[in-house]
């Protein structure tokens, strides 16, 4: 793990207002679900760095990119960087999606797409086409989908029906179960907004699919010292402790490990 200053060398427009922010290396080997804390070296307009999955990486680690959608002051500052300006990059942090799952079904919503490109690449290298269910409000919101077209099987869904399946990604998953493209007993990796992940986890439980979620928790440090990113959990791995630090014990949890608290 490292905390280093990297040079921004390319900003690639992924459509729908999102960008792949590419920095120079070295970028360590990083598993799907692991993340980095990012802030601009100069004129960082907020206090805390922001967590991002590694989106893409040169095979030799000579460059890496992060999927960023400018929605707040921090993300905007990152996307406003000019080529040659610097980012402070700390990571890789956290745990990956399980590495012993063959041919997982990946379900992404919005910028939750980020952890899956490297996985799609490694699956493709092993001669497999990863199944990606990618949901958004409309066609425009499916930022980055083109990067997956050639290396995986993409099933898009849009709330307004402007592209692919008309409806939520859960409806799409149900349809794929009916058609046989997804089978009971398979494993889902999911990353996206909380309501989407909850719905996916629910459906997986009903349909007999194993489900892992990568949480997009609010965090301060990313390396296990602030105790601010905790989520309520249950299960053996936590030895009876009711909370888990998303940054080091997550961000990937099996859905059945999470305790959903209605109050927040």
């Amino acid at each position: 793990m490292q905390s280093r200053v990297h040079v921004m060398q390319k900003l690639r427009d992924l459509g729908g207002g999102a960008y792949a922010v590419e920095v120079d290396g070295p970028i360590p080997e990083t598993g799907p679900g692991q993340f980095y804390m990012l802030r601009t070296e100069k004129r960082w307009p907020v206090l805390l760095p922001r967590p991002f999955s590694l989106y893409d990486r040169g095979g030799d680690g000579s460059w890496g990119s992060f999927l960023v959608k400018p929605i707040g002051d921090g993300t905007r500052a990152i996307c406003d960087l000019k080529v040659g300006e610097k980012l402070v990059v700390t990571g890789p942090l956290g745990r990956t999606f399980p590495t012993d799952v063959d041919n997982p079904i990946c379900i992404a919503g919005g910028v939750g797409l980020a952890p899956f490109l490297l996985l799609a690449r490694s699956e493709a290298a092993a001669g497999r086409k990863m199944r990606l269910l990618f949901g958004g409000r409309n066609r425009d919101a499916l930022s980055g989908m083109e990067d997956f077209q050639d290396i995986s099987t993409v099933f898009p869904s849009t709330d307004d029906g402007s592209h692919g399946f008309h409806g939520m990604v859960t409806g799409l998953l149900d349809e794929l179960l009916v058609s046989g493209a997804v089978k009971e007993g398979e494993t889902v990796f999911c990353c996206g907004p909380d309501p989407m992940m909850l719905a996916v986890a629910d459906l997986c439980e009903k349909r007999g699919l194993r489900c892992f979620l990568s949480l997009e928790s609010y965090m301060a440090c990313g390396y296990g010292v602030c105790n601010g990113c905790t989520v309520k959990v249950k299960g053996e791995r936590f030895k009876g402790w009711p909370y888990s630090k998303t940054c080091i014990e997550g961000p990937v949890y099996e859905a059945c490990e999470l305790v959903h608290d209605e109050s927040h």
Partner: protein
Amino acid sequence: MTVLETNLAGLELDNPVLSASGTFGSGWEGRQFSDLSTVGGLVSKTVTLKPRPGNPPPRILETPSGMLNAIGLENKGSEVFLRDSLPRMQELAESGQKDGKRGPRVIVNLGGSTAELVELTKRFCAAGVDALEINLSCPNVAHGTRSSTDPALTEEVIAAVKSVATVPVFAKLTPNITDVVPIAVAAHRGGADAVTLINTLVGMAVDWRRKKPVLGNTTGGLSGPAIKPVALRIVYQVRAALPDLPIVAVGGAHSAECVLEFVCAGASAVQFGTSLFSDPTLMVRVVNDLRDHLGEADTSIHELRSAMHESAARISTPGGASR
């Protein structure tokens, strides 16, 4: 004394740069980012006698130039800390004990009732810590700040801890009171070897759309650069009132300049907290920057400490005679 060395209530430090409780774990988590052997000291997250799960999430929120937290002293209790974390802090300390250096001092922060604090003090002194910091001021647990808003209680708690302590004891006080000086006086009377100033300021954030407080605990402690002026003011006031009571400053420090400002105001050492969330390598860089700044200004931490107070005294003394 080298330009960076400082004496904190009899505890010699290689430099005045410390981590703040609850912001750097036990130091071990940060070792992967930089070589911590040059840091002046590491202060643990608050340890309580029994495990405490902490408050329900959400626990943190960034605010302009600061952040709110309501962690609620989540920790696995003294038994686990003594077994797992303290040896790691001591390993980090040993890594710096070379070439005449003392290495990072191991300071453990303790919380709980008076009886629990007495028990914890015995255990941690026996385990060989360099100093103890008593958290009289956690704003995020029931009655957490009571003992540092009531002078009689402050004195009682510190006196009880001191009666069994074999290492220097620092009392960490709350800023959530009109005047901290009477509390610092009480801590001094109780035998505190130093006071740590300040814990977080109680604040709140509201989500009007959901008509709810943002934090699971409703209120939280405000930290970060936003509170630095408050911390400087309180350090200055306590130093003016109690020139003989050493002060550990904490509150919004994020650079070597900040350390020198706090030292000028009267601190013997300065803790880094929220700034370590953004940059786990910060303390090591601050130590290097301090050396440069002091070299340029041809002064030392020892010389600079209380410099403002001495010049104020000179100005207010008839004939300009200095103390």
